């Protein structure tokens, strides 16, 4: 008889990295499907190219860089999908592929791989693409529906209107449903919120970061409104651009956000404040990408600043 002797605990929960990544992918599907239906089949091809490039790069990194028998865990699929969702459907395929390779190889693998990267791979890749290929990155396809063929004419997103500043011409309902121009995965608030609800229900994420993030954006845009209709300005600020996609799927990225409850709230507030700051004073209409990337850099430090109160340190006897 061969008895195994190893350290306690001798039982383990059912959770696994693979299951978590699968849940994130499932949660992204509503927004992705909406994006494909909305912008046409090219949006789907961009996504497939981005995912394929991410997975192939991950396989290569596991084979040649790490050599410690890493398996595919679904995280590269998440990165590829997330990057595609931040891109306009008109983006050249090779730009999407280039972004994915950069995300997986430089941002993630060179930092030590899964869980070790300081910056969100998809967002860091997006930041690089905006820098290198600005024309490809801001040419948003007009809404023309599934199989509608890609229009060469570019459409102004609601955020472009808001820079003027003016409330966009689209109705709030269209903004909520996603009947607006924009990046593949950012337009439908409804689809993103559905995915977010799924992640919360599956306990993959907590509400702390998304609520702190969106709440901060709401409060700041309400107080510092740029049109007479303060409440409308706030709602358009929340529904326009990538702030919901960022708050639910980017800012909650495990590797690049704090692990302590207090740290997560602080981090969400920081993301929200920087987003509004960059939107109001930055070069681009959007500020989500850079807001989250800057907060990424602070995550580990925030864990230290917000370490849980040591057990028993608040005095013993009541």
């Amino acid at each position, binding site marked *: *008889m061969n*008895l*195994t*002797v*190893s*350290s*306690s*605990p*001798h*039982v*383990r*929960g*059912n*959770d*696994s*990295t693979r*299951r*978590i990544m699968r849940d994130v992918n499932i949660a992204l599907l509503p927004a992705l499907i909406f994006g494909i239906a909305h912008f046409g089949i090219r949006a789907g091809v961009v996504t497939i190219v981005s995912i394929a490039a991410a997975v192939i790069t991950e396989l290569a990194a596991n084979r040649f860089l790490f050599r*410690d*028998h*890493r398996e595919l865990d679904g*995280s590269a699929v998440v990165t590829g999908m997330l990057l595609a969702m931040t891109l306009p459907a008109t983006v050249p395929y090779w730009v999407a592929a280039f972004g994915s390779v950069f995300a997986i190889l430089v941002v993630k693998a060179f930092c030590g*791989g*899964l*869980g070790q990267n300081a910056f969100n791979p998809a967002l860091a890749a997006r930041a690089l693409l905006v820098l290198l290929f600005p024309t490809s990155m801001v040419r948003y396809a007009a809404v023309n529906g599934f199989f509608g063929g890609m229009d060469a004419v570019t459409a102004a997103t609601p955020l472009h209107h808001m820079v003027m500043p003016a409330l966009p011409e689209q109705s709030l309902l269209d903004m909520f449903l996603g009947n607006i121009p924009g990046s593949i995965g950012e337009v439908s608030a409804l689809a993103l919120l559905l995915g977010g609800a799924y992640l919360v229900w599956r306990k993959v994420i907590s509400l702390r970061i998304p609520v702190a993030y969106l709440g901060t954006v709401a409060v700041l845009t309400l107080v510092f409104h740029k049109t007479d209709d303060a409440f409308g300005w706030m709602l358009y600020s929340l529904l326009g651009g990538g702030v919901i996609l960022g708050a639910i799927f980017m800012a909650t990225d*495990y*590797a690049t*956000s*704090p*692990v*302590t*409850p207090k740290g*997560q709230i602080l981090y969400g507030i920081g993301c929200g404040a920087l987003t509004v700051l960059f939107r109001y004073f930055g070069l681009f209409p959007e500020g989500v990408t850079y807001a989250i990337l800057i907060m990424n850099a602070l995550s580990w430090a925030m*864990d230290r600043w917000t*370490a*849980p*109160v*040591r*057990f*028993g*340190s*608040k*005095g*013993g*006897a*009541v």
Partner: protein
Amino acid sequence: MKHLFFGGLHPAGRKELSSNAQLDTAFQPKTVAIAMQQHIGAPCTPLVQVGDLVKKGQKIGDGQGLCVPVHASVSGKVIAVEPRRHPSGRDILSVVIENDGLDTPDTTLVPHPDYSGLDVDTLLAIIREAGVVGHGGAAFPSNMKALTSLGKIDTLIANACECEPYITADDILLRTSPEQVLEGMRIVTKILNPDRVVLAIEDNKPKAVEALKQTLAGKDDVEIQVLPTRYPQGAEKQLIQAVTGRQIPPGQLPSSVQCAVFNAATFYAVYRAVCLGQPVTERIVTVTGEAVKNPKNFLCRIGTSYQELIEAAGGLTEDVWKVICGGPMMGFAQDDLSVVTIKGTNSVLCLAQFRNQEKENPLCIRCGRCVQVCPMHLQPLYLYRYRDNTAELNRYYVMDCIECGCCAYTCPGKLPLVEVIRKGKSKVREAAGK
């Protein structure tokens, strides 16, 4: 329901495997090996030699300092005095007795059914002579715990949480002997004179709660506090927090927050010592797990080998993977079934191969679940990350870890967190010793 301490989780209980079987009181081992060290402190010196005839309950080992005696758990002949396998994994000097099956009693200890006239020193001496130690696992000599708590506490707590999965020994004890446990609490109450006397039990043991309430029959000298089930509620620090709201400061004892905690089975042992004049020679042991054929509870003689106990429970199945002394969250895996039960042994757990075990190359994804479940408010992921850096380990309070296993249980990356943190603690201890 709101839980009363931070963190924790709900591992699959699996208590139904053994909680419905009858308590087996007839089981008699062929031989017993009484280890000379069954408690925290100094080991005993054997008082008998090979060839001696001993009676059940006869003192066969004793020592000085932080030490309580050990007793023969059967009557019969001493056939060896030699090192035998101990649940700690080491070989410990043991007195091996061949059971003659007669249970000829030793009558050195005098029963005191009415203990009201005994003073504190006499009661403590009786508890010491009966070899009473904590029955929850750590096995601290009970007389010393009581002595060091004298005059310092306002709350006495009986720990009947039994929060580890699978184990049902305390559950069965409280269902079969509630009166004796409560009487044991009254004896310790007489010694320590607390303002509040609480028996804390989790709500997954309704039969035991019912038995206790019926026994109390309206008396209110002992408060039965039914806590929402949550692991590790039975850990001393967490239990005190759940019952009183107080947190023991780092490195301090329960008496620093005016509390004393004893296991429910320890109170039973105190009752037997004082009222019946019986030393600790037996206790309830749960033999359970998917890899044993007939899981059940035994009234088990101290010193019985795992081999004999498991055979009495129908033997192991083909797919046995681990045999554990204690529970699945904090127990010790055994490599040899000649290992014997000691006073702190509450369970022999036989596990079949589980899925969800260690991965070849575990990776931390910083999901933070370990932080959410740590009842000691630690950040296990950083204790793992800085495992070789004693300065960082101290900075993250590695020595506060109680090794409850919540972090490793919940970790989706299957990191060996407890193992690594335990090694980190010894590194810190070594560094401090230099």
